[in-house]
């Protein structure tokens, strides 16, 4: 029979498809430093799935193509753009037969270091992306116990019972269990011993306040008769019957974190500078979300004066006026005092500016309060991009002269970037970001493992 219906066979493709996806993930990992600066991720709508066009991997083969670099191509060498094909239909030379978004208009980053030919838009969980970053940063799966958990005392909790204690903790219910049992037992004994009726025995027992031998004595008198009309049980208490509540302090381990983001919004903070600040903040928040059960973010903008604003405003406000960083620090300090005390909250304060400050000494006085309160970290990001002239930084020298801070240079693509770390465990980190490629090392420094244990 030439036409047959064979037994179904197991689906083989799935396993190999998974292998391909794993290899794609590997390619994404290699491109993380580029991906994290990608605007489409940072500005994405709420919801956790990020769409990244992932090049499907390809086996390289010799193929025709142009050797020359394409202009504005990012310099990967000719990539076969300008490729030709054969088609069929009405139309003559010069007619456009297809149209799609160009390279400069791409919707997201392209992952994949192997040559690729087409794109499969792939979705990846932001959480997964963060997990990849953490792995890459040498922060494999931080356990909850590794982070700074806070002991919060909420008062007291009843935890069991004990046989002694202050009167106020007496547990009447448990304490009366034996005494009432005793009452009925005594009543029974009296009846047995004296052969008198229950009510008479009760009256006798009541008269002597539960003393068994005294009650027997009374009942020995044949003239004694009941003075009560019904049996009303009562507890016959002995000292050892009393039960007291056992209490403990109610200590809960909370892992709440608040990020207080401060930013200079004076005219010199261009959109690009804010964008870099925003990127850094975005990833810091995502990171903190993975290790704390609850993360809140508060935004403070300042020029000469500071105020709390909603997120939207934080990134889009431009105001004129002088720059007085102390105003922001002051507001942050009072926010910590009133809403986020450091005994209840892990507090991370970040400040982004381009370094100009009207009165750095005043700022340092305020900054000092952060450290006295014991906040987890104070991060300072100084951003210098798109500048016609570079303002003299007054903040960094002020920080270094007021606090135990070491200056060092971290290697980045095509140079180095300046970093300022607190000596020993002093919770300060400053970075100077001069272009997009500084994001990854800055983040790496912020997320160093020992900062979180």
């Amino acid at each position: 029979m030439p036409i047959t219906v064979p037994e179904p066979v197991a689906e083989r493709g799935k396993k190999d498809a998974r292998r391909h996806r794993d290899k794609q993930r590997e390619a994404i990992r290699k491109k993380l430093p580029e991906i994290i600066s990608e605007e489409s991720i940072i500005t994405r709508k709420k919801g956790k799935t990020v769409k990244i066009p992932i090049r499907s991997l390809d086996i390289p083969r010799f193929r025709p193509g142009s050797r020359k670099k394409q202009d504005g191509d990012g310099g990967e060498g000719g990539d076969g753009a300008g490729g030709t094909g054969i088609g069929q239909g009405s139309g003559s030379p010069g007619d456009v037969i297809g149209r799609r978004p160009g390279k400069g208009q791409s919707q997201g980053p392209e992952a994949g270091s192997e040559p690729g030919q087409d794109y499969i838009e792939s979705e990846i969980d932001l959480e997964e992306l963060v997990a990849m970053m953490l792995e890459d940063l040498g922060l494999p799966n931080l356990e909850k116990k590794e982070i700074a958990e806070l002991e919060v005392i909420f008062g007291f909790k009843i935890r069991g019972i004990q046989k002694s204690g202050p009167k106020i903790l007496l547990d009447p219910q448990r304490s009366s269990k034996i005494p009432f049992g005793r009452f009925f037992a005594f009543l029974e004994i009296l009846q047995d011993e004296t052969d008198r009726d229950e009510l008479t025995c009760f009256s006798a027992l009541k008269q002597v306040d539960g003393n068994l031998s005294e009650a027997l004595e009374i009942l020995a008198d044949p003239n004694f008769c009941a003075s009560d009309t019904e049996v009303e049980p009562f507890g016959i208490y002995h000292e050892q019957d009393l039960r007291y509540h056992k209490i403990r302090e109610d200590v809960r381990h909370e892992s709440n974190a608040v990020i207080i983001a401060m930013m200079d919004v004076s005219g010199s903070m261009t959109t690009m500078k804010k964008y870099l600040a925003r990127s850094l903040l975005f990833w810091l928040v995502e990171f903190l979300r993975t290790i704390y059960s609850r993360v809140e973010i508060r935004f403070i903008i300042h020029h000469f004066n500071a105020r709390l604003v909603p997120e939207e405003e934080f990134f889009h406000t431009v105001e004129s006026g002088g720059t007085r960083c102390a105003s922001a620090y002051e507001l942050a300090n009072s926010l910590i005092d009133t809403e986020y005390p450091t005994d209840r909250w892990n507090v991370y304060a970040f400040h982004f500016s381009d370094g100009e400050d009207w009165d750095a000494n005043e700022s340092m006085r305020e900054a000092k309060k952060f450290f006295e309160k014991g906040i987890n970290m104070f991060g300072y990001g100084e951003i210098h991009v798109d500048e016609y002239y570079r303002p003299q930084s007054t903040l960094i020298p002020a920080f270094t002269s007021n606090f135990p801070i070491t200056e060092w240079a971290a290697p980045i693509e095509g140079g180095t970037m300046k970093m300022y770390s607190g000596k020993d465990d002093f919770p300060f980190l400053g970075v100077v970001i001069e272009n997009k490629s500084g994001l990854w090392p800055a983040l790496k420094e912020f997320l160093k493992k020992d900062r979180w244990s």
Partner: protein
Amino acid sequence: MNQADIDRIRNLEVRIREIAEDMGLLTTDIMFEIVPAQRVLEGMSYNFPTNFSHWSFGRDYERNRTIYEHTGHGIPYEQVWNFEAPKAFLVETNPLALNVLILAHVYGHVDFFLANRYCQQGRSFGDIADEARNAADRFQEYTDRYGLDEVESIIDAAMAIQWHQDLDPFAEEVPEEEMREYLMEIERAKLERPDTIRGEFKKPQTKEEAQAVEKRLQELMFKTPPQPEYDLLRYIKANSPKPLRPMGADILSVLRNQARALSPNGRTKLLNEGWATYVHVHIMRQLFKEGLLTAEEHGVFNRFHSSVLRENKKSLNWYRVGFGLYEYVREQWDRGRFGREFDECEDPHKKAYWDTGANLGREKIFEIRASCSDRMAVELYFRDEFIHEQALYIYQEQVDERTGEMIDVIVENRPEVIRAILKRSLTLYGTPTIYVKDGNYKDNRELYLVHQRDPQLVSTLELNPQYERGTLEKIFFLWGRTVHLETGEIVEHKEGELTKVDRVVDSYDGKDHRSMKI
């Protein structure tokens, strides 16, 4: 598909075979399997009904499945393998009329497999399906023993150069030493046989020429390969300085054989699909005439048939152009529109109405399906008139200066250009021609490859550099020593003039890529 449908389709298959034989087609027993769509998707992604595991197959499978699940399209209507006993899949969810169309179509393919000289060559790998199934088991054993990464990196590397085969598909495989002997014999004959006619004719005339022959002989003695070797996997497998181990050699053989078994299909895709379409049209017409299919089924057939023949703006629809070619040639030869007299006729009126009543069309198309490759068909039968009729053009990807969008623009519709480009791209999936010139370069067993150019065709002058670097790395992985590739770099390209090209050598030594002008 229920039992009644299966019975009906079995009866129809018997009738289809009869009609095919009446048409003069070659037939044989074909194994038809009724399978779920997933099986067909796997078949098309893995090249064979069962093949070894590899991520690139998985990638294609996922892509094909996604397209199928989202659109319901993208599943090949028919899937048939040119095995000793040809095998084909019918999708269980296809409407019956479509499966009947597929039966007819497959009979067209099978006739083509049996008749076409290139596909006959492919049939010499008769047990390739078994080999693929066995390879799947062996590769799994390798993976268990040496780990996936190890096995995968060899497969990746072999796949990179899998399609570089002998230019002549009928070339016999001659061991290197035999070939050397043969070539030296030819040179020696020039010196030693002055008395024969051939010797007289070829005899070196001067002392210098004789010395040149001596020198060539000296070179031949040690040269590897003795003549340009286009089959890269064969050469590397036999000569690599890096120990490939039995596993490596096995994987290379499997990959090479699969490509060699599949390549006849690659060389004849246009003619083969066109022929199968031509055949299914004929057979289906007959089935409807005989009342074996209903009017409703006729509607289903029409819908699928016209979607198969739809024109593609951005790629060549093999079915449409191939089918069109047979129809065109049939009509031309029926009217005697061929030969010197016709070609040289300059009277447009006379030429337009040219009809000698030769009635040779049927014979001609049967001959084409037996003897031609796609490349030959383009050269011989893609007349200007046919190219215009099919409205073929070349388009190019460009950037719209105003909007920054990528656009595809028609850049060319001159028949001579289209012929040249088609000929080029129809030779083995457009694989550039590359050969091993020296396997002992610098006396250090480095590998020297040459990218062969066709000065007339701009697309053969340069290679995509990103892919080239990637491929060199893969070759290095197999060879273990520095790999060089002589290729071209366009200096100046002007319309209508010969393009100026620099020759360059790109090298990869396991660490760095270097490029040098020569």
